[in-house]
């Protein structure tokens, strides 16, 4: 009997729910935030898809220099001044062209052509491949090395921390670009046999070294905060060794900060690669990167602005998308602390 009575009470209670209680009003920025995430993700997906699948998509690979047999190259047009530096047509694949070599049609769509008569849009998409690869590889190694250094410094403290922190401070005291130039130059001269063809390795190394100090400091600061928390003491009190505490207790807590920083950091490194390329210190000629393309077009800025500007716009939008997504993710990743 009494059981049924209790149930009736609860039923009547839920029959008239307080709407403000059941559905807390969503703050307005929530919705806008979601749109930002979708647009950024869509753009990045497109860029990554283009970069990964550039060879299979209807883009034209203009890096003819890498083919030993010139016939394999569809568009070696350096000698044809008619095709060079055509302004953007603003149409995706307008067939306004005639065959250049063999029967392969050339598309001079969207972004026009560069000094060599290469289709800028295709070239920008191939450039995404290298730019993103450099950015991703650099931040990956940066997070790995910087993360380990930061965790060890923050957790061990004492002399270990002092040594690591001092080294990081020394690196941070250098002007970043100057340091990068040194590093690229250093790794360049050590492999002088093929000075003309610089691979992405020295650039990645330079960018990794640039990214380690800020990551290490961020991770160190976070580690210090978490290392003093009681759950770390509790784990110690249960007999956990230092390695286990770092990997299982602290790392998962530091991870969100690391990931969000990595995303923003990648954006910074993509731009940094552009800056290096602008100084002529990036991957050499036939392989396009966004930075190299912007650099390549700068002398023609007055007559053919699009050669520099179009890849710049793509770089800008991509970096913006990465940053917005990073911000949105940092919001999502916030650790739910046990409060109250």
């Amino acid at each position: 009997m009494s059981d049924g009575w209790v149930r009736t009470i609860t039923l009547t209670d839920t029959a008239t729910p307080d709407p403000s209680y059941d559905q807390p009003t969503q703050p307005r920025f929530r919705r806008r935030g979601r749109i930002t995430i979708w647009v950024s993700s869509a753009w990045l997906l497109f860029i990554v898809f283009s970069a990964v699948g550039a060879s299979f998509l209807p883009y034209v690979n203009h890096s003819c220099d890498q083919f030993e047999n010139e016939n394999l190259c569809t568009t070696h047009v350096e000698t044809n001044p008619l095709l060079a530096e055509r302004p953007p047509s603003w149409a995706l694949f307008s067939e306004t062209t005639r065959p250049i070599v063999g029967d392969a049609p050339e598309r001079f769509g969207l972004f026009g052509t560069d000094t060599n008569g290469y289709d800028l849009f295709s070239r920008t998409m191939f450039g995404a491949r290298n730019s993103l690869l450099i950015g991703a590889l650099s931040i990956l190694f940066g997070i790995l090395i910087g993360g380990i250094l930061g965790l060890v410094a923050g957790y061990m403290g004492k002399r270990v921390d002092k040594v690591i922190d001092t080294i990081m401070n020394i690196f941070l005291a250098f002007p970043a670009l100057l340091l990068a130039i040194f590093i690229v130059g250093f790794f360049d001269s050590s492999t002088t046999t093929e000075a003309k063809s610089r691979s992405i390795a020295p650039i990645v190394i330079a960018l990794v070294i640039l990214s380690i100090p800020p990551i290490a400091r961020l991770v160190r600061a976070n580690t210090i905060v978490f290392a003093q928390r009681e759950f770390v003491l509790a784990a110690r009190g249960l007999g956990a060794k230092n390695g286990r505490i770092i990997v299982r207790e602290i790392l998962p807590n530091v991870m969100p900060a690391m990931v969000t920083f990595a995303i923003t950091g990648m954006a910074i490194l993509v731009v940094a690669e552009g800056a290096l390329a602008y100084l002529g210190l990036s991957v050499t000629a036939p392989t396009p990167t966004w930075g190299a393309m912007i650099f390549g077009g700068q002398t023609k800025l007055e007559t053919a602005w699009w050669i520099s500007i179009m890849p710049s716009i793509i770089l800008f939008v991509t970096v913006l998308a990465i940053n917005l997504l990073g911000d949105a993710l940092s919001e999502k990743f916030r650790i739910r602390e046990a409060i109250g």
Partner: protein
Amino acid sequence: MSTLQTAVRRETGTLLEIEDLATHFATPGGVVRAVDGVTFSLDHGQRLGIVGESGCGKTILSRSIMGLLPRRNVIRKGSVLFEGTELTTMSLKDRQKIWGAEMAMIFQDPMTSLNPVMKIGKQLAEPLRIHLGSTRENAQEIVLKLLQDVGIPEPEKRLEQYAHELSGGMRQRIMIAMALACGPSVLFADEPTTALDVTVQAQILDLIEDQCREREMALVLVTHDLGVVAGHTDQIIVMYAGKIVEIAPTATLFSKMKMPYTEALFQSIPKLADPSHTRLTTIGGRPPNLVAPPDGCSFSPRCPYATDTCTKVEPELQQAEPGHLFACHYPVGSDRWNEVQVSLGRRSGGH
């Protein structure tokens, strides 16, 4: 009879022997004498309470015994014998084998002593994986049993939850379960109920007591709340300024306290019999600065019975009766005590 005794894992006898234990911190402001020459022993299955104000060195004492304090800028003295083994000189590696397996600790704030990003089930299995080398699957069963033991409803569901999804009392139960996982022989409970509300406090204390009895585990209950130790301990240590000022079996301490500090603590407990709006009795002043403790008895600046002797000569621990020690020149019941009581109007001249 004899089979019964062998079935019981731990017999009576001394489990922990602490002698002249001192922990001093070297700080820029001077040496802080957080724990200053503490001697006592703990038997198997015994429940000991350590009481005192904030900053009396209770927490540092319990952590010093376990050896959990950082070693930097710490001056340690004295010895801690655990089942005859000296802990203070033991290597970190050996101590790690004891932590969790033989000695476990639970903390004041269950909000912060659980890892916010680790699932409860995984966290509970940690000690088992560390000490018994259990795999995730093996541990699961023990973890479920532990959760049932500490009275958590729907244990299967909890395994997949995070700390923030549980209430404070529930989190403290999880902490207790973690501490119990490897069957330690002594549990240090550092203010285990301070962050919880009163009804949950009682439940948690009962749980700790039940588990101690069931597992024949000794308990060191650190608290500032005399009410907490009253019902849940066999013996009580009263600490002041890093030293033991009174030690007695629980019943004796409450009925025949000797140390004025204990008396003052006892008087600070609000009583139900008092009329409404009675001013709470407090102990005037603050605990002494542990960098430069006063000469003589460290409680003398706040003690209503203090004389010149108190500010000059430090009282030694003396015996009132077997098992009851106190450090005071003018203990409760002495002539001086009576005199002051009369002058305060608390008591008439000839009793």
